């Protein structure tokens, strides 16, 4: 174990928060897209779904890797905590994995399977239902950890199966956090889609309405969780009351969602997109700062659970080198795709022809 003075566990914790933030902004929006695929309705139902598929298409596998980064950092740098979380949250984590598998493969199968409506609809249904379950379960896992229930369960001996493996996550507070996470993803996706709809005003209006709806659910779930925290997560409740960095971040979270809604009302979709992303990011960082220094509240700190400094140093070197490779690659990827959305049909054409000239930048 480290001397209490080591700064490295904190740096790793910051990197993990960045990765979680990245996952929510990119992967979370893909999940949210799946929610709107499930809830597609009205006369423009097919167009809504096509836009969602286009916006997820090229990059879903890339967005997904942020989650793997979090997991790998957790087990490399805080192995005992990874072990505890994996044992106590076995059931929701397993359910989440099933969601990850079904969502990823259904999306791909839908892209490559026959383009009959019924086949497409079947895969679409698998894709969208697992898009709803996966982020909700992710929120449930994080909520169970934040509430202190995971740490408490790891000390239990000789209790019933339900008391140890179900009760820590199946309570109203934690389940509300699942709904909150899902609503955040849906809100983010709806705002992104207003922007990605481009010139199509009807589609923009569809997703604008959906963004308002999702923001309403976020609002209800956030204050619901706050109300429930007194009973189910007193440690969370305590941190909400103190005036510190996390408190400021919570305020910013609220401010940004208001700005995002105002921008949506004015139909400034590009601005709304930035505010929505800021809103979700402040949510993540507010949670991160109120949790710190605990990795497993209320009794395990990042420093106490960290692997030796020699290990963390090497991991940080690897992260730095990896970032050197990844940053330009990611920039290239997003420049190539996000500039001209809706060319998903590249994949479907049965062409044997020449390359087309590359599009001018």
């Amino acid at each position: 174990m480290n001397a209490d003075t080591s700064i490295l566990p904190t740096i790793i914790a910051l990197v993990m928060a960045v990765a979680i933030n990245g996952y929510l902004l990119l992967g979370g929006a893909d999940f949210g897209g799946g929610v709107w695929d499930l809830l597609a309705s009205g006369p423009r139902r097919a167009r809504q779904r096509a836009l969602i598929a286009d916006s997820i298409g090229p990059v879903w596998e890339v967005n997904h890797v942020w989650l793997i980064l979090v997991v790998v950092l957790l087990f490399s740098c805080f192995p005992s905590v990874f072990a505890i979380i994996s044992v106590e949250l076995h059931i929701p984590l397993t359910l989440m994995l099933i969601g990850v598998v079904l969502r990823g493969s259904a999306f791909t199968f839908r892209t490559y399977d026959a383009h009959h409506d019924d086949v497409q609809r079947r895969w679409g249904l698998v894709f969208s239902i697992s898009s709803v379950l996966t982020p909700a379960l992710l929120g449930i896992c994080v909520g169970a950890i934040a509430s202190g229930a995971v740490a408490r369960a790891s000390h239990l001996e000789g209790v019933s199966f339900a008391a140890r493996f179900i009760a820590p996550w199946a309570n109203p507070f934690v389940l509300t956090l699942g709904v909150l996470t899902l609503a955040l993803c849906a809100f983010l996706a709806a705002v992104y889609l207003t922007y990605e709809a481009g010139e199509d005003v009807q589609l923009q209006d569809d997703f604008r309405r959906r963004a308002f709806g999702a923001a309403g659910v976020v609002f209800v779930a956030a204050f619901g969780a706050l109300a429930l925290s007194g009973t189910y997560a007193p440690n969370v409740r305590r941190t909400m009351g103190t005036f510190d960095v996390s408190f400021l971040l919570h305020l910013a979270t609220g401010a940004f969602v208001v700005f995002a809604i105002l921008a949506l009302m004015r139909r400034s979709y590009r601005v709304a997109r930035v505010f929505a992303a800021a809103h979700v990011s402040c949510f993540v960082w507010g949670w991160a700062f109120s949790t710190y220094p605990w990795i497993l509240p209320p009794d395990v700190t990042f420093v106490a659970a960290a692997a030796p400094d020699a290990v963390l140093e090497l991991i940080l070197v690897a992260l730095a080198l990896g970032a050197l490779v990844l940053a330009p690659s990611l920039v290239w990827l997003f420049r190539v795709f996000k500039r001209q959305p809706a060319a998903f049909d590249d994949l479907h054409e049965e062409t044997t022809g020449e390359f087309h000239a590359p599009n001018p930048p």
Partner: protein
Amino acid sequence: MSDLLAARSQMAMSLAFHIIFAMVGIGMPVLMVLAEWRYTRTGDPLLLDLAKRWAKGTAILFAVGAVSGTVLSFELGLLWPGFMHFAGAIIGMPFSLEGFAFFTEAIFLSIYLYGWERVSRRAHLVAGVLVAVSGALSGVFVVIANAWMNAPRGFRVVDGLPVDIDPIAAMLNPAFGPQALHMTLAAYAGTGFAVAGIHAWFVLKQPKNRFHRHALSLALRMAVPAALLQPLSGDISAKLVARTQPAKLAAMEGHFTTQSRAPLHIGGWPDEATRTTRFAISIPGGLSFLAFGDFDAEVQGLDRIPEEDWPPVAIVHVAFQVMVGLGVFLAAISLWAAWLRWRRADFVHHPWLLRALVAAIPAGFIATEAGWIVTEVGRQPWIIQGVLRTRDAVTPMPGLIVPFLFFTALYVFLGVMVLYLLMRQMRHAPKLTSPGSG
């Protein structure tokens, strides 16, 4: 079924499923880049079409590989929290590097798959090369972590937990080079022969179809060298196992009695009760020579090892025979194809080679599965050789048969779907007969 057995079965099933897609993720990018590179050289649009079709197949398989790989990274903790608690800090390094390699692979595969008309020709080819390189690297990093389980280095144990952790020494364990080489070659050979066999089948049916003839010839360029090098790499691996894991070697060979001039058992069935391997062809001194390069060397048998530390001998021995047998089969086909190519013969006039190639479609994959059974079952009862027992690493969570059965059903379903989609795609291959009719 005990919880330990259920956990081991779920892990085995998850690995067995994922490894196919991992192999394809390493091998297919090489093929699509090869086809695209040939296209830039010759300008034959048929080659571009081939690159695009191979890329589509890669996309389906890569997605399933990505999600099944995510499952594995969680299962390490969900099933083996004791192992991760002990080893997470030691082998986190190769997993972190694997994460980056996979990230890079995913990024450039996205650019490759969706960027045909969005980036320049040269940039597109470069993206393909980067997919191939990062795909191979991510495989190597995962194998390094597994090699450490077979030859753990870079730590000391005090009170049941590791201290003085040196992640670099852990990565550079003696097994990493041989295992990484063996697995990478397996990926190229296995994928290459599967693709070659599929196109060989079409060549048999449509001998004039240029598309499939080109595809066959390109696939063999990857498969043949890999399959010819694989026996050499296997020899390196076997000599290493002889030094570091004598129990595994003894089980592989059904070798019960320590002796010099130890015989090599080909085939046969090891009987743990009578401590004999029956019905095998014995080559005197063969095992001594293969393990230590000396016909008179002494090879440790299972009699030197406490019976509680024996792996399941019959499973390991049979799996080893299957792997070696299929490896020899692929090497023989490779020699045949290489000889014909040297003679400038046209494969179309050699239907028996084409039939052998069709028969070899699953051979590389089955050999690889068998090889992983040798590695993993042969290390039992240890999860970390000589350090931590598998039974001490398993989760305390009861009822593990439920997730095992569920994931098995899920993966069977996914496997069937993938096969169906790939076959649907192949049926839509072009029927080109005259040159240049792109």
